[in-house]
Every structure is written in C-alpha cells, then in structure tokens.
C-alpha cells in the first residue's frame, strides 16, 4: 500500500477565468497531520474544497489511494473516505447531536431511541463528552466541532480536513483539539488543517505546505520551519509586479481625533479593544480572519451591539456614544461600507438610483415626510457620474452590474450621507482590477478632503498601499500600530500572528 493517501498533480481551479489555485502539486501521507498556511486568498480553502468535493478542478488530477478520483460532491468525497469540517460548521442547529450524526444515513424506519443509543456508544468510543440528545444550537464551539469530527469518523473518513479549526476555540478547547487530532492520527486518520496561527502549525503538524497567490511555495517537514521562515514564504511576493507596488514615502499628518474606542468588548470576537481614528488620514486595519476587526467597527456603526455589562466606551468627538441601530450612527456622520455587499450592501433587484437614495434616507432615523422621485433620479445620476459607475442609465438594476460597479453603488450609498468617518470593510474584495484603482483613488480623495477614513483589509499590499497609519488586530484587539513609512509586510504579518 502506498504511503500517500491523496495526491494532486498540477491542480488548477479557475473562478471566472481567475486562478484560485494554479499548478499545485500536493501529497497527503497516511496518518500524517499536514498544515496548510498562507495569506487570505492564497488558495488554501480552494485546495481543501477540491479534496472534499465541494468544487471540481478545472485542470489537473487528484488521486485517492493511487486511484484517480474526481469527487463532484461532498457525498462522493465521503465515499472516497474524505470528510471536511468547515469553519462555519455544517450541523443543523435545530436537531440533536444524534440526529446530526446520522443525517444522510437514515433508514426507512428510524427509531429515535436507537439512534440516541448508537450515538452515545459512538461518542463514548471517541471519548467525546457530548450528550447525544443535546440540541446543537445550545452547544459551544468546541462541542460542535466534536460533533463534526465524530460525524466524519462515523463515516469512516480516512482523511479529515479542518478549515480554521481553532479560530472559535478557547485556549483550553484548543488544547483538547490538539489531543484529539493526535488521537485521530494514532488511529491512522490523515489530517489536513488550515490555520492562521503559525505556532499551531509548528506544534501540531508533521508537514507544512505554504501557499501564496494560488501557488505552492514549499512543502517540508514542520521541524525544518520556524515562524520567520513561514512568514517569509507566505508574504514573499514581488511587489513590483502588483497593483500596489509603490511604497509610501509620505503620510498625511493626523488631524482631529474623531473616534476613540476604549476597551470595547463583544464576546467572543472583540476583547478589550482600544484604538483611535483621526481626521484627514487613512487608518488601515489589518488582521487575519477572526481578528475582530469587522465586529469592532460594526459596533461603532450600530450594526452590532457591544457587551451589555462593561462593554467599553466609544467616544465620538470627545462625546461618549452608543448606537444600538445604524440610523443614529449615520446621522452622527459614521458610514460603514460593508464587506458583504450582496447580503448587507444593497437591494439587488432595485435600481442604482433607488439604492443610492435609500442611503440618503437612512440619515433620517425618524423617516422623511416627502419622498421625491425627481430627487432620487437626480442623486442617482450625480453619484453614477461622480463614482464613474458603468451602467445603462441610473435606473439599471444593481444585480446587472459587475462586482466593481456594485461596490461603487454601496460606496455611493454611504457617501451621499456626507459622513465624517467612513469605514471601508474589504473595499476591493471581488472587485476587478480597474475598479480597484478607482476605489483606491476615491479613498485617497476622501482622506485628502479631511475625512477620517478606515480601511479594513486582509490583503497586505492594499493596506500598505493605502494607509497612512496601520493598526494590526489579533484575537479581538489591536496589538500593534505602524506608520506607513516604517511598516513592511513581514512586520505586519508578524504582529498579526505572533
């Protein structure tokens, strides 16, 4: 029997012509723990999704136990013995643990008691302390993960893939997960796990693969790596060929202190976070997924609520404020441009003009007496021209626009409110290259006009190219601040994961 359980050769996956992974060769050995590391967008998730049958390869081959395999669905992958535990777990929250375990394996006649007994015995055999009759929505993150793992083992998985398994776990739960992974390894199960916490990869993995920009950079035994060498492999791109190649030589001086966040708390994502935002500057906020950046600024904008008890302070122009809904925040001059435009950004089946006008109406928490179709049309036309939205007239539906133009509509919705503080959350995610440049110019222009601009981004070159001041967030709070003049990719990444 071959030592290799899964192999991928020249694996390439294109999304709308853009390579998420390109010519990646990957081998997973029997009974090994293999860590996949890389920046956001490096192709880690795509690679694992290919193995788990969530997406199919565009070109290249995948072999399981030496035989060619191309699972088209997770169910097919499961038949090959490959199971994936997603970061957002795939359990049905309203069902019990036992029901979730046997979901998809139901017989014609199912006896609930029988399922519960079987689940109890199985969970005990894995030494998992989870009640089979507990409703999943009532379980903590670690226990949900246990159920996911149990389900994978129940399906006789030979390979279990974990996407950010420890992101939502407490330190104690994390240790438990490590023990569990080692136990699974002893049982001969191969494990692939994605992690942004490099120390986890160094501690737990037998081998580490570093991906960058969809390509495999290096695979080697974990003991041959240290943190610095992994970081270098992760970010060592040639900046001269990227859109953001030019390093800043001057920065805008800080203006008035517009916003101060003091010891903000929102369990479990924001932990005692403190920072300030100044007028006339772009403040870049970098962090890996789960660093609490988005949540912090959603609390500022009234989209989320801070902890009820001792949740910290938000001081806007030297006045403590607390917004429970977005409307008063908008009225106070805070605009939040969402990272998830399709869900939170616009009404996709309505026109550009109406979407932009809705942005204006949001400034009036008590409602506005008279709505003017003429004003709607005029404001739509103005903002289409100002932001160079490419569309057939201002009555074009947003769903018909490209990602970049959709993003411009979301931005227009916020800018029509004439805010003083504008928070851009991943402003160029899923946006074409041309629109990226335009959006960056717009962000720079806003800062030059004296607005306080916040750019939350997981993409280091964007942070370095745009920001005057860079805040690095890790585990729910800002841990480091750099001036754009002193910052380097290595320094920022080191602060984000150290």
């Amino acid at each position, binding site marked *: 029997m071959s030592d290799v359980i899964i192999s991928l050769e020249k694996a390439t996956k294109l999304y709308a012509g853009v390579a998420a992974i390109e010519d990646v060769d990957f081998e997973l050995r029997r009974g090994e723990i293999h860590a996949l590391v890389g920046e956001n967008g490096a192709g880690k998730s795509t690679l694992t999704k290919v193995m788990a049958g969530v997406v199919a390869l565009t070109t290249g081959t995948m072999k399981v136990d030496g035989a060619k395999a191309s699972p088209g669905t997770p169910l097919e992958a499961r038949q090959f013995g490959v199971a994936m535990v997603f970061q957002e777990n795939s359990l049905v929250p309203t069902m019990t643990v036992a029901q979730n375990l046997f979901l998809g394996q139901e017989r014609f006649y199912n006896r609930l008691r029988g399922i519960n007994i079987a689940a109890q015995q199985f969970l005990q055999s894995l030494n998992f302390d989870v009640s089979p009759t507990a409703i999943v929505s009532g379980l903590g993150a670690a226990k949900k993960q246990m159920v996911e793992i149990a389900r994978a083992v129940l399906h006789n998985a030979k390979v279990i893939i974990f996407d950010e398994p420890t992101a939502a776990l407490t330190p104690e739960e994390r240790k438990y997960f490590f023990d569990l992974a080692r136990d699974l390894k002893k049982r001969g199960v191969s494990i692939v796990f994605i992690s942004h916490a490099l120390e986890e990869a160094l501690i737990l993995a037998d081998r580490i693969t570093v991906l960058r920009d969809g390509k495999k950079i290096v695979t080697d035994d974990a003991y041959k790596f240290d943190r610095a060498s992994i970081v270098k492999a992760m970010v060592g791109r040639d900046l001269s060929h990227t859109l953001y190649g030019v390093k800043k030589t001057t*920065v805008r*001086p*800080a203006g*008035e*202190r517009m916003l*101060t*966040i*003091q*010891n903000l708390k929102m369990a479990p994502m924001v932990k005692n976070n*403190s*920072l*300030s935002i*100044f007028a006339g500057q772009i403040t870049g906020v970098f962090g890996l997924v789960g660093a609490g950046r988005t949540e912090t600024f959603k609390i500022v904008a009234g989209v989320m609520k801070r902890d*009820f*008890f*001792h*949740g*910290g*302070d938000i*001081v806007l122009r*030297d006045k403590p404020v607390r917004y429970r809904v977005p409307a008063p925040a908008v009225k106070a001059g805070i605009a939040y441009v969402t990272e998830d435009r399709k869900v939170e950004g616009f009404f996709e089946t309505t026109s550009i003009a109406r979407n932009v006008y809705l942005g204006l109406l949001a400034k009036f928490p008590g409602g506005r007496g008279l709505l003017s179709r003429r004003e709607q049309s005029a404001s739509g036309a103005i903002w289409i021209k100002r932001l160079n939205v490419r569309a057939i007239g201002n009555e074009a539906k947003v769903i018909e626009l490209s990602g970049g133009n959709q993003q411009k509509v979301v931005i227009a919705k916020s800018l029509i409110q004439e805010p003083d503080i504008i928070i851009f959350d991943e402003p160029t995610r899923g946006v074409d290259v041309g629109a990226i440049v335009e959006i960056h110019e717009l962000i720079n222009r806003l800062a030059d006009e004296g607005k306080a601009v916040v750019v939350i981004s997981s993409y280091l070159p964007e942070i370095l190219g745009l920001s005057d*001041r860079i*805040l690095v967030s890790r585990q729910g709070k*800002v841990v480091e*601040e750099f*001036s754009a*003049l002193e910052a380097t990719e290595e320094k920022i990444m080191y602060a984000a994961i150290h």
Partner: protein
Amino acid sequence: MFGTLRDFAQGFLGRGEATITVPSFDGALKPNQALERAETLLECDAPEDLATDGTKVYLADGMSLARFEGNGLTTLREFDRPITALACLRGGGIAVALDGREVRIYPDPVAPNPSAIFQGAGMRSVNALAPAGSEALFATDCSATRDVDEWAWDLMERGRSGRALRLDLKTKEITELASDLRYAFGACATDGSAIISESWRHRLIAVAPDGMSKIVLSHLPVYPSRISPAQGGGWWLTAFIARTQLVEFVLREPAYRKRMMAEIDPEYWIVPRLKSGKSFKEPMQGAHLKAMGVVKPWAPPRSYGLVIRLDASCKPMFSLHSRADGFNHGIVSAVESGGWLYMIAKGPRRVLRLPIEGLAKEFGA
C-alpha cells in the same frame, strides 16, 4: 435619589462614571523609548521643577534653587522649606513656591530679599507657576486637603479641590480663576487665558480671565502635569504616569479604597507610582510585568515616563516615552532651552536632556 439610583445602575452596568476604560496610546501618543536615550544630566535628591528664561535653565531641587551653567550646576540659594514650583519672570525675576503655601517673587535669582510674597487665600499645595505677561503669574493649587507630596491620597480620595489662581504682581492680589478642579497640576499662559492641567480628569482646560473655561484636550490615557511653551509655537506637556484599567477599577470601588488606605502601607497601594520595581509586594509585579525575567515594555505600567509635544491648538503632535521596562519614569517638568529639552524624571530623581532637532521628523509629526 435619582442620582443614587443612577450611580447604582452605572456601577452595575459599567457605564457612565463607572466605566473602567482607558484610551489607547496611539496616533501621536504611540509608545517609543525616546526618553530612555536621553542624556542623564544630573542625579539629585529631590528634583521638583524646572524653569527657563530662554537662555539659562533653573532647577528646584528640594530646598535649593540651582542653575545649569555649561555642563555644571551652580546652587544659587537655599530655602528653609522645599520648593514646590518655579517660574522665570520677564525682566529677569524668578518666582518660587515654598512648601505649596507661599509664593515669593525675587527681582533676580540671587537677590537677597523678595519683592513680593503671596500667602493665604487658602493656598496649600501650589505645584506650578507660569508667567502671565509682565504683571501676573498663574498658579495651580492642586488640593485644598492634601500637600503636594500626597497626590496619591488625593487621587484615592477622588479629590476635587484644586484651583487655578492669578497672582497680580502689582496689586499683590490673588484671584481665583477656577475651582473644584480635580488636581490642578500645571499652568501656561496663552492669549490672556490660562491653560490648566487637570490630572484626575485627564484633560487640559483653557480658563479665560472671566473664569469661563473650555476643554482644549481631553480623553488622555495619562495624568497630565506641568506645561511649558515650545519654540515655534505649541507646548510641552508632561505626564507623570499612564492610566491603567486596574487603577480605574480601584477608583470606582470606594469600599475597597477605604480599606486599602486604612490597612495597607501606602507604598503598596494600587495607585500610580513615579517609579517601581523595588519590592515584590508591589501590585502589578511579577507575572504581570515579567516574562522570562525580562520586563515587558507593554505591560500595565505601574510607573511611566511621558512628554507630549502639543501644537498651538493643544493637539498632540508626537510624544516621548519611557515604557514599563524603562527607568526615566515620573516626568513632572520639561522646558526647552538652546535646542535641548530639559526634563525631570522624578522616579529615578534625574534631570534629563534630549536634543530637540529631528524629534518631529523621527516621530512623523
């Protein structure tokens, strides 16, 4: 009754006056170790305040008044009580506050007799003096209940008896500009108004001659102290200690504070300090501060050193720090003279000196 209910609700929910939050050191207040590289000019017994007439720098050290000449120090005179504040006046005169209760004006630093003496008017703890034109002085009287050295008591008692005074050199009158200040510690004159440091409220206020005041800088993560003018406009603001959540928490627990003050040696109270690291009994020592035997610079600072450069509108431009792992803590006075910034680090009892040229560029101001 409503006030009591409000206080209870705020304490229960951790809001309003009961918040235990501290602003972060960021932007112009981003930490560095600039004070650690400052030259130690002198180690002395009890340095308290500095003053400059533009060319020479004067030092109040315990009961002595001294002057820096070249690299040496010349003692000009001795008093029978400790000097608590010092200011150079226009025309070569000098003002000294003795024991916080008396302000004497001398026509020159070595003149045998004072030209004016200000006493009474409830003065108990004068801790800063600043010339206000040629005919007056601004003074801050930090507390009506505690002496200058008892600032930790005043903080723990949540004192609010500080005052800003105007001493008229012609009429010898003392006018109260502002009262009920929460530890006034530092004054400076600007456009007829006085800028006053209010330490326990972490802010600077501008007080007009008619007594109207407005906040010019607030939400500081430190306890501000003395202010002095900077060349080219603006100010040097010293901060003798950084705020921590632990102290903020203690300040919101009256029963705890009462017991602590009654039963524990003041040396080991949970209060800010001008220096630390002497005893294992100190709160926030050991594991809080040290990792592998090394003091963490980012640890909660029991003591800290900080000077902030403010522009003419009192907006911070940049700052000079000595962090938790440094020594030059407890900066209580800073004056600019001849391209150098002279500072008193009261923690290690040092007078420091740092070249000013290049600082703004180094810290991106």
